[in-house]
């Protein structure tokens, strides 16, 4: 009977949109690095951790003030407690485990046993509870032993990427470091026991096995406080062995850590770049570094909100030398694009390498991940354009076709060529710009005649009305401008800038 209600409840949760969206919201808030509001929660928790630690340090010499005590003991602990419970909650879905177990029992035609699902739920939650981050969180909540609260500072590890990366690097050398640790323990143990046996009854500073092990650690680490020193010849020989062996072990450990960092250095750099680009609302991923990418970045560096992905590490290091943002990876792999914040940011991918097959593959990979990703792809030939369109590319660039059109225009209509070239290159004398009519700026409600483009040394080419998809070329003088209209105007750059400043000054 109990099991029946549990299953019913689990299905209820599974079908509840409100429960799913609430859980997703809290998951994003606590765990999703790409969720905008997570940053606010992080900052709030960091402030809370620091204030708690500062209060503890202050109270050591100045005593505990009443309201500070309440703040530290109750408010901080309660907030951390809620945070802990929420993290535990979003770590796994209990109802899904119950449903899975129920469906298994239905399939096998056996009776559903709640305890089997319950064990799985506990295992899942235990996996979270025993993780280092969760243990630190739990200690941070505990208000019983005041001095232990200084450990709250370790909660900052969750928000410090450098320390996280350091730990990840160490993890890659787990085997080597564990071997060295076992050797170290063995060395400290044997030298400590030997010292206790040799000088336990002679040396007045060695009163227990703990003193001897403490001496062994201090000596092996070459710290040498001098509070415990050997008094016999054999004791000194053991000291010498401990020091030399300790030095060798330290040197090994250092070289292991350094080599791990060297191996992971590029990955760390890449992850940092990805983290920083993921903080932007809008960014560009450039796949394929060549003449076109160079020229594009010279012209438009997208306010530095771009990253080049190059799979060849030699080319990638050359790109970095050229001063561009680059990561070394194979963008055609599905998981590479998912490293970026494609869910929340406005992402454009430029596939401008010279390999059509690769460009199409990247286009398909991007579009299969999200239809919202804008893909601008380069095709080597006009015959390939159709394939790119089928793959979902939003714009297809065929360099040879465009160059040929320009070349033919320069022969057939040389003056028109100059105009088009000037407009495309954004030359100062013929600057073509798009001006959006914004709310509360001086353009709303005015007719084209009233604005007097001609006296402002501007040409109005046309208007894109918000409610029309069509572009209105050379609109009648009586046309009234409305919010969100986009004006396409041409003129000297200085005139265009002056026009924007005079009508949209209040918004600058």
């Amino acid at each position, binding site marked *: 009977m109990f099991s029946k209600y549990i299953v019913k409840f689990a299905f209820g949760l599974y079908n509840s949109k409100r429960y799913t969206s609430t859980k997703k919201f809290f998951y994003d808030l606590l765990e999703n690095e790409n969720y905008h509001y997570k940053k606010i929660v992080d900052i709030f928790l960091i402030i809370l951790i620091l204030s708690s630690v500062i209060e503890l340090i202050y109270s050591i010499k100045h005593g505990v003030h009443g309201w500070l005590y309440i703040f530290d003991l109750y408010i901080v602990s309660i907030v951390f407690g809620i945070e802990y419970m929420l993290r535990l909650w979003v770590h796994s879905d209990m109802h899904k485990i119950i449903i899975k177990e129920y469906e298994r029992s239905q399939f096998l035609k056996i009776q559903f046993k709640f305890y089997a699902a319950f064990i799985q739920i506990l295992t899942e939650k235990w996996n979270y509870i025993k993780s280092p981050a969760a243990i630190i969180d739990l200690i941070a909540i505990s208000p019983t032993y005041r001095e232990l609260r200084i450990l709250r500072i370790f909660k900052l590890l969750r928000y410090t990427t450098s320390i996280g990366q350091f730990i990840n690097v160490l993890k890659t050398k787990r085997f080597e470091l564990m071997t060295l640790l076992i050797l170290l323990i063995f060395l400290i143990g044997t030298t400590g026991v030997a010292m206790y046996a040799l000088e336990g009854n002679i040396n007045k500073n060695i009163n227990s096995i703990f003193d001897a092990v403490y001496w062994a650690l201090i000596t092996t680490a070459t710290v040498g406080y001098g509070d415990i020193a050997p008094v016999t010849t054999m004791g000194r020989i053991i000291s010498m062995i401990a020091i030399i062996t300790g030095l060798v072990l330290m040197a090994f450990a250092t070289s292991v850590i350094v080599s791990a960092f060297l191996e992971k250095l590029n990955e760390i750099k890449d992850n940092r770049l990805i983290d920083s680009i993921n903080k932007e609302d809008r960014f560009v991923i450039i796949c394929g570094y060549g003449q076109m990418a160079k020229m*594009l970045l010279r*012209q438009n560096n997208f306010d530095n909100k771009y990253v080049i992905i190059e799979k060849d590490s030699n080319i990638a290091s050359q790109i970095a030398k050229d001063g561009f943002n680059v990561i070394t990876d194979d963008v055609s792999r599905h998981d590479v694009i998912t490293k970026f914040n494609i869910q929340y940011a406005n992402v*454009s991918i430029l596939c401008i390498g010279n390999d059509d097959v690769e460009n199409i593959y990247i286009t398909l990979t991007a579009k299969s991940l999200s239809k919202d990703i804008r893909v601008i792809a380069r095709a080597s030939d006009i015959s390939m354009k159709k394939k790119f369109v089928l793959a979902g590319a939003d714009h297809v660039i065929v360099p040879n076709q465009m*160059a040929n059109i320009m070349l033919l225009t320069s*022969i057939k*209509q040389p003056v028109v060529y100059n105009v088009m070239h000037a*407009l495309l290159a954004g030359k100062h004398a013929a600057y*073509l710009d798009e001006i959006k009519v914004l709310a509360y700026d001086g353009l709303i409600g005015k007719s084209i005649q009233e604005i007097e483009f001609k006296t402002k040394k501007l*040409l109005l*080419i046309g208007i894109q009305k918000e409610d029309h998809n069509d572009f209105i070329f050379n609109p009648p003088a009586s046309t009234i401008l409305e919010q969100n209209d986009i004006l396409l105007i041409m003129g000297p750059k200085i005139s265009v800038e002056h026009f924007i400043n005079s009508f949209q000054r209040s918004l600058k």
Partner: protein
Amino acid sequence: MKNKKHAWIFGYSKQSRSIAASLLAENFSITIIENDDKNFQDALSDGYVNSVLIDITADTELEKLDIKQSDWILCLMEDEYLNVFLTLSLRASCTCNQIIAISHSIYSTQKLIMAGANQVIDVYQVSANRIHNIFEKPITTKLMDNFISPSHEFSFKEFTIPKNSFLDGAIIDEVDFDKFGIIFTGIVDKELGDELIFAASNINHKIDNGDIIICIGKNEDLVKFGKYLYKDIA
């Protein structure tokens, strides 16, 4: 028979094939010059029977080509070094000809200009400009796409002002281009030289015969305007 314009195309690559075909459609007569036998055979098999196979690095062979002053020269060699060398050689022997070259890198573009090309089309610069405009000026991009699309609705068109036409002697500000549904965008005032002066520069020019004006508009309106401009000219 009306004299055909002649174009000398140096280099018969995939890219030059489409240029040659387009020029042929525009009633140009074409001579392909190649230094590679395979490309030369391709040109012959594509119907360019008067193609020539020469060593293009030899000035004596270039001089034998008999290039007239009014001919167009297109330097489309795939090898960048060769293209720059060829442009320089041709400029030395054909001082008055229009030389147009294709470049595949910014460094070549600069060198081709220095070598004497009148116009250098930088393949990647054109594409980079377009990508830039897709991001920064989407409506402009659409409009420009329209100009280059085979089924375009709008175009830029240039008109050389004929003698005794209604624009001969007119002041720009006094001409009502709106009446024709087109926008006047610029003029090459031959009195002032060959430089294009954009409409918005606010210099009120007097239009004379021989000047070139550039207008933008719907194709049908541009055609109507052209007919009106040339209507009384026999």
